[in-house]
């Protein structure tokens, strides 16, 4: 086993691409080290990306925000501009693990761990976030929902690194929100979760919407029918009823140690309603 700390993204990509055995990227380590401890991962090479220039920064650009792959989630919560523009994304990122884990974990790590229950992913999917990928073949930008393909699996090729998550500049009258259900108040994996992102017109009518559900299928679901329900509405009671029904119907959950099929269906709808209501209020809707 080797541990390296490259200073450039090109070097990191080259080392990853050239590694003979399994290689792992280390940013926060809050998933990788747990897997290593349990004997589920035994990488030949660990590439610590935290010394790479720019990867530990959040940049605000003309297009929006670029969140470096090594930025701990705690730092997201300390960025006032990001929190103002994308409160749902930040609240999702801030729900991962404990304060201790927050000091280490990253949203890119959360995305690449490819758990259907990852907290930040439904919020990122709802936000329409994109991932900037660097690999042996160069740079490409892809929607975040195309990164996880199945539990524990991603679409990234050997040698590819997500260097940053890109979030658009906000249109006026926009708001997003993320809610999850856990049995305790902290320290749990989402049993079911929902992220909603809305933009309203001048009259408070939903102009565009994205609704994503977590922990109800093999990957995070972007529920387009749910968005259709919201568009054109002011989130009246009937709309919320239909939203819950559509979300519950879109779920393909399983029974497992964290919850039952029935529970996940029912609560997915409840959380979508609550997240939509919160996003609507944040967008200035009444």
């Amino acid at each position, binding site marked *: *086993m*080797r*541990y390296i*700390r490259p200073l450039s993204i090109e070097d990191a990509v080259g080392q990853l691409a050239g590694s003979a055995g399994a290689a792992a990227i*280390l940013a*926060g*380590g*809050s998933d990788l*080290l*747990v897997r*290593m*401890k*349990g004997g589920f991962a035994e990488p030949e090479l*660990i590439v*610590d990306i*935290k010394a790479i220039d720019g990867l530990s920064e959040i940049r605000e650009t003309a297009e929006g925000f670029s969140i470096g792959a090594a930025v*701990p989630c*705690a730092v997201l919560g300390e960025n006032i501009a990001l929190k103002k523009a994308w409160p749902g994304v930040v609240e999702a990122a801030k729900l991962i*693990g*404990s*304060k*201790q*884990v927050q*000091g*280490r974990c990253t949203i890119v790590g959360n995305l690449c761990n490819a758990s259907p229950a990852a907290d930040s992913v439904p919020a990122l999917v709802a936000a329409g976030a994109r991932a900037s990928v660097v690999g042996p073949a160069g740079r490409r930008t892809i929607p975040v929902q195309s990164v996880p393909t199945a539990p524990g699996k991603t679409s990234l090729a050997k040698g590819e690194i997500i260097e940053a998550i890109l979030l658009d500049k906000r249109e006026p009258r926009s708001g997003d929100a993320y809610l999850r259900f856990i049995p305790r*108040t*902290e*320290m749990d994996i989402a049993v079911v979760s929902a992220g909603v992102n809305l933009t309203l017109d001048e009259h408070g009518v939903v102009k565009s919407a994205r609704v994503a559900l977590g922990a109800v299928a093999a990957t995070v679901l972007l529920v387009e029918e749910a968005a259709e329900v919201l568009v054109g509405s002011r989130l009246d009671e009937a709309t919320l009823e239909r939203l819950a029904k559509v979300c519950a119907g879109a779920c393909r959950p399983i029974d497992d140690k964290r919850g039952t099929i029935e529970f996940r269906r029912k609560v997915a709808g409840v959380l979508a309603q609550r997240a939509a209501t919160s996003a609507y209020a944040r967008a200035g809707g009444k």
Partner: protein
Amino acid sequence: MAGIAVSTTINGDAVEYLCQPDETLLDVLRDRLGLTGAKEGCGTGDCGACSIILDDRLVCSCLVLGAEAEGRRVETIEGMAHGDTLHPLQQKFLEHAALQCGICTPGFLIAAKDLLAKNPDPTEEEIRFGLAGNLCRCTGYDKIVRAVQDAAIVMKGA
């Protein structure tokens, strides 16, 4: 497997050690440096008993590799008191009997120190959520929360 030479600062002192690439900072502290104040309750970041402060961030040392400490600042429970003067949190934990078995205490003290550094006047709810990454099985947390509240008052006055 070759050892990695690491130079770091622990509780203000320059420290050098060799560690294996898969060795956690917790293992380095406990097994190589004799700093056994940080405890391993789970090894997976779920209990907080191994809490340390790494460059002003509260982390679980079981989720940090020893190699990652290169060039950084590590604070552990062993550095919390100044000589024989206890930190106000340590003193209040004693006075409030905020510990029974005491295995979680170093982690709680470090986490509480970080909490009060970032929020000197926390509400009870902020304390409870701020310390949610530290498990205690003995106390029901009541006396821990009260000790932190009391220490916050003392530290503000200081």
